[in-house]
């Protein structure tokens, strides 16, 4: 009977197909903590974060127990630090980052995002200071995540910022060389960064967001994979259209569960509910992989011909299901392809089927971008900047979010393995032509906004 099938499908989705709430993210405004005295600013920020975020952990636990849906990560995102702490120099910003780290630890949250700068059109003094502190902050704190919005459809691409970031990637990797450059895992560089993204490392509390807000990230690659397998094994006639429909209705169910949890948590902590971000965010665990979805769709070699089309269909169906499920869908909402965090994708790269070029092509049809990509340690700053420029150009021209999370792995070469551990996973180091675009990148300045930006 249909209703029995529906009930059992929902039970399976929760019990055996890895549906979870990947991240409950509390956005906390820190502009009222700004002070010329950095010690006072640190104290105010720390007190505010602990006061607001400590109940979050209890609320997540209670709602998770009641509904039987695991909440994997509890996170905090604060106002972009470069703006909230404008006027402070590098040493003060590092001091402030340490306070954020301490506050996150005391509140019991896994990560704290918002060590961020929005520099798509240019850098202020404090933006530049913040970017220059990234190696120190990311190597000396354990929970602080950083993001830089270096491009937008309206502003174009800030190549000056990307050149500086190229140097910072190398310096941050160097400072954590024994951990394969792990510091870089906590830095995302964006085009068109969303203000309500609950996923790290790119989460920050947008300027237009409420005082305290709960944004929630639901995942579920395993659920989508099982839905596809069920359709293929059902004996029913199917084609790619029906496959897309199946993914869409699964996305609907996943989004609805997420919104329910998000609203309950927001009410319990007295915060506004922001958005539910339905993203297929893989983890290194078997059965929690976007790469495995491709395989279930009939792509025997992930990265081979057809992969980009499969990803486009998957991403679109996920968005449509999410949009129908809720009026509060936001963030990134699509399929992620973080290389080291998805065991199936990492295997495809190891086998040589998934290359940097193919990954870049795939990012033109999905969210978010070149994510968790390990590169040879001798990759130059200009080459890192150029890779970022390529990726951000896709976002700028197509009026969508793209980002890069690049990890130049010190003392390792293409083909060797980078190991980051835990949810960050491991992957082979991808080959990249080094130094071929230095003259172009060194021209610096800003690539102007594309024609598509003139839409008013």
């Amino acid at each position: 009977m249909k209703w029995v099938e529906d009930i059992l499908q929902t039970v399976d989705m929760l019990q055996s197909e890895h549906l979870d709430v990947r991240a409950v993210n509390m956005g906390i405004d820190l502009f009222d903590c700004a002070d010329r005295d950095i010690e006072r600013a640190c104290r105010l920020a720390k007190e505010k974060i602990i006061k607001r975020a400590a109940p979050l952990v209890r609320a997540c636990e209670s709602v998770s127990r009641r509904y039987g849906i695991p909440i994997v990560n509890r996170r905090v995102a604060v106002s972009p630090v470069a703006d909230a702490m404008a006027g402070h120099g590098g040493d003060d910003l590092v001091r402030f980052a340490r306070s954020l780290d301490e506050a996150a630890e005391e509140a019991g949250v896994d990560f704290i995002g918002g060590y961020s700068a929005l520099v798509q059109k240019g850098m202020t003094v404090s933006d530049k200071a913040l970017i220059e502190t990234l190696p120190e902050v990311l190597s000396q704190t354990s929970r602080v995540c950083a993001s830089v919005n270096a491009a937008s459809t309206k502003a174009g691409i800030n190549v000056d910022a990307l050149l500086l970031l190229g140097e910072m990637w190398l310096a941050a990797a160097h400072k954590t060389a024994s951990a394969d450059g792990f510091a870089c895992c906590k830095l995302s560089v964006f085009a068109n960064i969303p203000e309500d993204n609950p996923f790290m490392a790119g989460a920050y509390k947008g300027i237009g967001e409420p005082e305290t807000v709960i944004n929630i990230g639901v995942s579920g690659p395993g659920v989508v994979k099982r839905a596809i397998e069920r359709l293929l094994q059902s004996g029913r006639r199917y084609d790619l259209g029906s496959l897309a429909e199946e993914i869409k209705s699964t996305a609907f169910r996943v989004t609805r569960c997420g919104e329910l949890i998000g609203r309950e948590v927001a009410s319990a902590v007295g915060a506004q509910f922001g958005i539910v971000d339905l993203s297929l965010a893989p983890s290194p665990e078997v059965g929690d992989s976007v790469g495995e979805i491709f395989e279930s769709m009939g792509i025997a070699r992930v990265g081979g011909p057809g992969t980009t089309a499969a990803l486009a269909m998957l991403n679109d169906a996920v968005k449509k299901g999410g949009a129908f499920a809720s009026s509060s869908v936001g963030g990134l909402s699509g399929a992620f392809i973080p290389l080291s965090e998805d065991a199936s994708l990492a295997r495809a790269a190891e086998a040589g089927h998934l290359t940097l070029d193919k990954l870049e092509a795939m990012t033109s049809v999905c969210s978010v971008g070149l994510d968790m990509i390990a590169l040879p340690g001798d990759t130059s700053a200009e080459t890192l900047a150029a890779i970022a420029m390529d990726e951000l150009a896709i976002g700028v021209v197509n009026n969508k979010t793209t980002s890069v999370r690049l990890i130049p792995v010190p003392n390792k070469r293409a083909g060797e393995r980078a190991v980051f551990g835990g949810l960050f996973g491991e992957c082979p180091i991808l080959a990249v032509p080094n130094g071929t675009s230095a003259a172009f990148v060194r021209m610096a300045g800003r690539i102007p906004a594309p024609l598509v930006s003139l839409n008013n």
Partner: protein
Amino acid sequence: MALDRIGIVRDVSAALAALGGSITHISQTVMRGYFTLILSVEMHEERTQLEIRQAVERAGAVGELEVNVRPFVEPPSAEPRSVERFTLSLRGADKAGLIACATTYLAAKGISIEDVYAYVRDSRALVLAQVRVPADLDVEDLQTGLQDALSDFEVAAHLQHENIFKATGELEPVLGLQRIKP
């Protein structure tokens, strides 16, 4: 109760109407070819239980309908504790005593069963029950306790809040399902 055939509801309701009765509630189902029907009827004229039973029995063939008539007694209205609805699913190998074991555990915890549906196919049992769980009980503890109680049976037991099924199966905005009101 009767072996199922087309027209039983028609025949029974016509017999009751002929007695001047108005049907206020119906619950009817067919299980493995057997028809069951529970009706609540308001009689506008004084009728005895025997009169009603015989009238309904005569609506079917001789010996076809097994009828039981009782006067309606208002159930106690106030819930002693606040409760929430959950769906209990049991799935696994069929073995005698499974339902008895699960329901013994539920009763001991003060959990009432509103609706239950079960069948065995290819030696696999499926039980779905809508249950009312006192709000002060910890669901995760209940879930663990139930699974422990069923350790002699090879079944997976899951308790899931009804809001999950409403959220995934209905188009009503999730905002209306919130347990904790803003």
